[in-house]
Structures are given as C-alpha cells and as structure tokens.
C-alpha cells in the first residue's frame, strides 16, 4: 500500500515537473561580438550590459529560460562571422542572435539567418540598408550612418561655421559618412573647403593637419571609428595649435567615445559630436542604468554605445518573450512583434521601424567637457526621431 502511494506520488511529481519543463523552455541566444584584438571593447561592453540587464530583470522573461552562447568574431571578418553564425545556428541551435557586429559580418550572416528564420539584433553595424533588406528577421538597436553623419552639418551652419573641412578614415564606412555629411552640408548651404581620406593604419597626422591649416576652415568634421585614430587626430589638431586658434572640431561620437575619451585627454575638451547616447543623458532610466552598469563593470570600464545597444536588444527580447508567454518560442512571431515596437531606452525613446526593423531615435549634439574632473559628453541640442535614411 505504502509502495503504491509512493509510486503515485512520484508519478504526480514527474508530471508536474514535466509541465514545469515545458513552461521553462530554454531559449538559446548567440552573442557574436569581438572579444579579441583591436575591437574588443564592443564585446566587453555587450557582456557587461547583458549581465547587468539579467541581474536587474531576472533570467526568465515570459517563463523562458535564457542560455547565452558567446563567440568571438575577432573584428570585421565576414568569413569568420559567417562560419560562427552557421555553427551556432546549425549545431548549437540558437534561436536568437545578438550580433554579429560590424557591417561586413552582418551582411555575411544575413543569408543564414534568413534561411534558418533566426531573429537577430544588429548592435554594432551602421551601414544603411543592411537590416530588413538583407534579413527580414533582423532588428537594429545601434544606429544608421545618416543618423550620425547628417545632423552636424545643419548644426554647424546654424552656429555660423560655414566653411567645413571633412576628414574620414579611408574605408567603406568613412566613404559613406563623407557622402551623407557633404550632402547635408550642401542642403544647409555650407561650404566644403576640402576633404581628406586618411589610412586606417596611421600613426602620423601632421602632413594632413597642415593641409587643413592651409584650407582655413571654420570647422573640421571627423569620422574615425577606431580608438587609436580618434586619439591620434584629435590630439594632433590640438597639439598643432589649430584648436587654440579657433578651429571647431566636430565629428561623430566616435572621436569622444567614453571608452577612450580619457586617452584623448585635454584635447577633447570643447569637441562637438553627434551621438545617440551619453552617460550624461538626463532621464531617470539612464541614471538607474548607469548606476547598475557601473556596479557590474566597475568605474574603469565606461559605458559606450555597444553597451546601450546590447541593453536595448535585451529590453526588446524580454518584451517579445513576455508576449509569447506560455507558448512555444516562435522566431517569426518574435521578429514580427518587434516591428513598430517602441521602448524607453537609457538614450531616450526609440522606435523600431514597422517596415524593415531599422531604428528611429533621437540624435544629440554634445560638447565634451570636464564634469567633476571627468571628461563627459554633455548634450546641448536634440534632433528628435531621426530616420535611418
């Protein structure tokens, strides 16, 4: 009798736990970022942001258990990225992807993600036309080049800085940014007094600086998306005395990225940039975000855009998973849910475009200043709901 009872109990327990297991379906998320080499900061920030988010909002959104699978894309290396995407999709059977970072990697991954119907978050690639167009299941939480490269042109002209010199890194993103900025400058009736494309591997700027000096511009617009290039050129302009003589230094937020603004040092003070996020953004959510992120990552690791993009990717993931509560995970529904979805991000409000999953967000004009001795990007003007086109 006793035995029969215990068997019965065991069977009941088994059923209950089986139901529990159903409720606790595991969703595997591939995190494909650069963790090594020159671009490793992105990967680090992504990890910190995900960790912070999960500590704060729990690990079972919508009753799904999350499992993270990390891989190192090593930088813009589509061959590696494509293989890794293939590997995590076919062998690890991930159902969601945060990454891969960089445009070439995103492009290489798209066919696999389309074929396998795996939703992905573009958290580190900015080229236009690479989101919905390439994979219908992708969503961008980063930014699109025009959002960053256009607004500074009208802003500069409004300030009376009409003669602009453009310096970009000599590779595809640089060429794209140059195009958008020059277009916007023309629309705003500014004058392009010269432009330069500088090599990606370049320890010496003085020859270029002299050219800028010769052209006598009011301001210089810079696009240098790598740490050592940003440090190099901003310091070179400062050291040459051009900044002291009144030249306005402008650029995309890369040149005063929180990740290395301390290394740019005093030269960064007064530099005007366009950006999607600053730790100084004035909102309750951001203050909360900065506090909890810093608790996880430490003071030394400052918050960059990769962190915010990963954070928002997690926010969107949690929202979409909550919407599928009690059901089996469905990638297509997941992607569809995000279209037109609107959230409050630490950077301000963002909207995922209905038609193609790209991002619509505020773009801020910021000035680098010392706040309590620490270099910060202070938001001084806001362009609202800027399109990705």
């Amino acid at each position, binding site marked *: 009798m006793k035995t029969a009872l215990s068997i019965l109990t065991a069977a009941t327990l088994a059923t209950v736990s089986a139901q529990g297991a159903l409720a606790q379906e595991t969703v595997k998320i591939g995190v494909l970022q650069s963790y090594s*080499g*020159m671009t*490793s*900061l992105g990967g*680090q920030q992504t990890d910190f942001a995900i960790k912070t988010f999960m500590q704060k909002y729990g690990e079972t959104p919508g009753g799904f258990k999350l499992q993270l699978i990390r891989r190192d894309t090593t930088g813009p290396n589509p061959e590696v990225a494509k293989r890794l995407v293939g590997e995590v999709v076919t062998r690890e059977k991930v159902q969601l992807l945060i990454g891969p970072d960089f445009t070439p990697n995103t492009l290489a991954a798209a066919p696999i993600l389309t074929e396998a119907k795996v939703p992905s978050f573009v958290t580190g690639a900015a080229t236009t036309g690479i989101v919905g167009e390439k994979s219908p299941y992708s969503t961008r939480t980063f930014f699109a080049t025009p959002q960053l490269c256009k607004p500074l042109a009208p802003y500069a002209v409004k300030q009376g800085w009409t003669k602009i010199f453009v310096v970009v890194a*000599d590779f595809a993103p640089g060429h794209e940014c140059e195009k958008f900025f020059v277009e916007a400058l023309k629309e705003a009736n500014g004058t392009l007094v010269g432009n*330069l*494309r*500088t*090599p990606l*591997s*370049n*320890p*010496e*700027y*003085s*020859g*270029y600086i*002299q*050219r800028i*000096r*010769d052209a006598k511009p009011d301001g210089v617009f810079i696009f240098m998306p790598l*740490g*050592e290039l940003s*440090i*190099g050129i901003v*310091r070179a302009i400062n*050291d*040459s*005395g051009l900044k*002291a003589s009144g030249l306005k230094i402008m650029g995309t937020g890369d040149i005063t990225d929180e*990740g*290395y603004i*301390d*290394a740019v*040092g*005093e030269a960064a003070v007064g530099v005007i940039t366009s950006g999607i996020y600053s730790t100084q953004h004035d909102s309750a959510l951001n203050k909360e975000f900065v506090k909890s992120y810093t608790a996880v990552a430490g003071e*030394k*690791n*400052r918050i960059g855009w990769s962190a915010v993009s990963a954070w928002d990717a997690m926010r969107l993931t949690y929202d979409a998973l909550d919407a599928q509560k009690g059901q089996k995970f469905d990638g297509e529904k997941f992607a569809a849910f995000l279209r037109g979805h609107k959230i409050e991000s630490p950077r301000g409000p963002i909207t995922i475009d209905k038609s193609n999953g790209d991002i619509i967000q505020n773009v801020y004009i910021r000035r680098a200043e010392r706040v309590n001795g620490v270099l910060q990007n202070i938001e001084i003007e806001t362009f609202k709901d800027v399109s990705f086109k």
Partner: protein
Amino acid sequence: MASILTVLFNGVAYGFLLFVMSVGLSVTLGMMNFVNLAQASFSMLGGYILVTAMQSHGLPFLVCLPIVFVLVGAVSVIVERLIFRHFYKTDDLTQVLLTIGLVFMSIAMATYFWGGSYQRFDMPSWIIGQKEIFGLTLETYRIFLVGFGAVMAVALIFGLERTQLGAMVRACVDNRRVAGACGLNTELIFAFTFAIGGGLAGLGGALSANLLGLDPNFPLRYLVYILIVVSVGGMGTITGTLIAALTLGIADVLGKYYFPQFGSFIIYLLTVAFMLWRPHGLLGRGA
C-alpha cells in the same frame, strides 16, 4: 614657405619617433643577430610603466623616463635569461615564431593587468602646446622628441657602435667560443646588450605611446613600422636605422601633405623599392 618648413620639421620629428620606436630592435638584431619581435611588447610595457608611474604615483614625466629604461631593461634581461638564450643558435624563422608567440601572450597579459581600453596620459604643461622658433610655430613635444632622439642617436652610435663594447659584443656573436677563450664573459655581455635593447624599446614605447594611444594591441599595431625601419636601415647598424627612420618619416609626412590621396602607399612603395635596390638595407653588412 613657412608651411613647407613646418611640414619638413614635422617629418623629422616623425622620423625621430620612428627611430626611438625601432632602435631597441635594431640593437638586439644588429648586435646579437637575434630577431626579437617581442621588442614591440617591451615598448608597450614601457608605455604602461610610464602610465602607472605618472598617473598612479604622480611622478614627474622626466623622472619616469629613466625608471622606464631601467625597469624594462631588467624585465628584458629576465626574459633573456629564461627564454631567449636557448634560441641564439636557431634560425631566423624560429626566432620570429618564438617572439611573436611572446607578443601574443603579452597582449593578453596587458589586457588582464591594465584592461582593454586606451590609457590616459596627463603630460606636464611644459611639454604641450607650441613654441615659436625662427618664426615657425612648432609643437613642443615634437621639439622634445627631436632633441631626445638626437641625443639618443649620438649616444648609441658613439657609445655602442664605435667602441670597445660594440666590438666585444660583435666578437661574442660571431664566435662565442673564441670570445670566451679571449677572456670575455659572453653571458654577461649578452645579458647587458639585451638590457640596453629592452630599455631602449621601453623608452621608445614611453615616448610614443602617449602620442599614439596605448592599449594592449600596441605591439601588433606598430610592429610593421618597426620592421620596416630596421630592415630598410640595414641589420646591424644604428646609423642605418637613424637614416632610414628619418627618410621614411620625412617622405611619409611630405607625401601626406602633397599627395594625400596616396595614403600609406608612399611608405610601402618606398620600402619595397629600397629592399629591391639594397636587399640588406641601406647600410647593411650583407650576408
């Protein structure tokens, strides 16, 4: 006119920057015939020691430089005693592989100890800004670099290349047994040369890192430049390294000023042409 002279001066300054970065490798390669790519890691270490001494301990810049020289020199002797000395007789490729392995390890170690991001240098105020000299506005740090590099070059050429010590080191490298028999302590001389080479690499790192930005990938990013300067100059000659560094520095800056559309081509093309013209370098001793 003034702008041409300024550009020229900047080229010379860049040349001296290349010189201080490469001279460490030039010494070990020239004197010891040892292909030590890890010199680039010693440079990085020099940069990090400078950061730590200046930022964390508040030591003045000029005090830090000798500290960097001594500490990196000491570290390189330790590495020499532990690892390099077992590889003196191996071929170039083995040495390249060994030392590039060490470079990889050093990158990971730097990430571990100092983090992956770029370091902050607060240079003293006397060295930033510009100075008026002969009607030209020149950057103070570049003037410092030219002066420092020139003193270093003179000291090395007359102190290492043309002295008893230089001859002794060469004798040891050319024939260890005979040199030993002549009463030279080869082990000590090798260690000493390594200390100088490493110390110089450290100094080069300290002087360039605050200008170029310092992160764990520093060695890989600038290794190619160091290789180019040393091989164009010719193995085994500090004078050659100096001439090559200045030539390439001036050519690069002038090229970027007059033909900005060519980017890095000029320095690479120049390297290929030089090496085809003189495969052993400008002042190389030949095989």
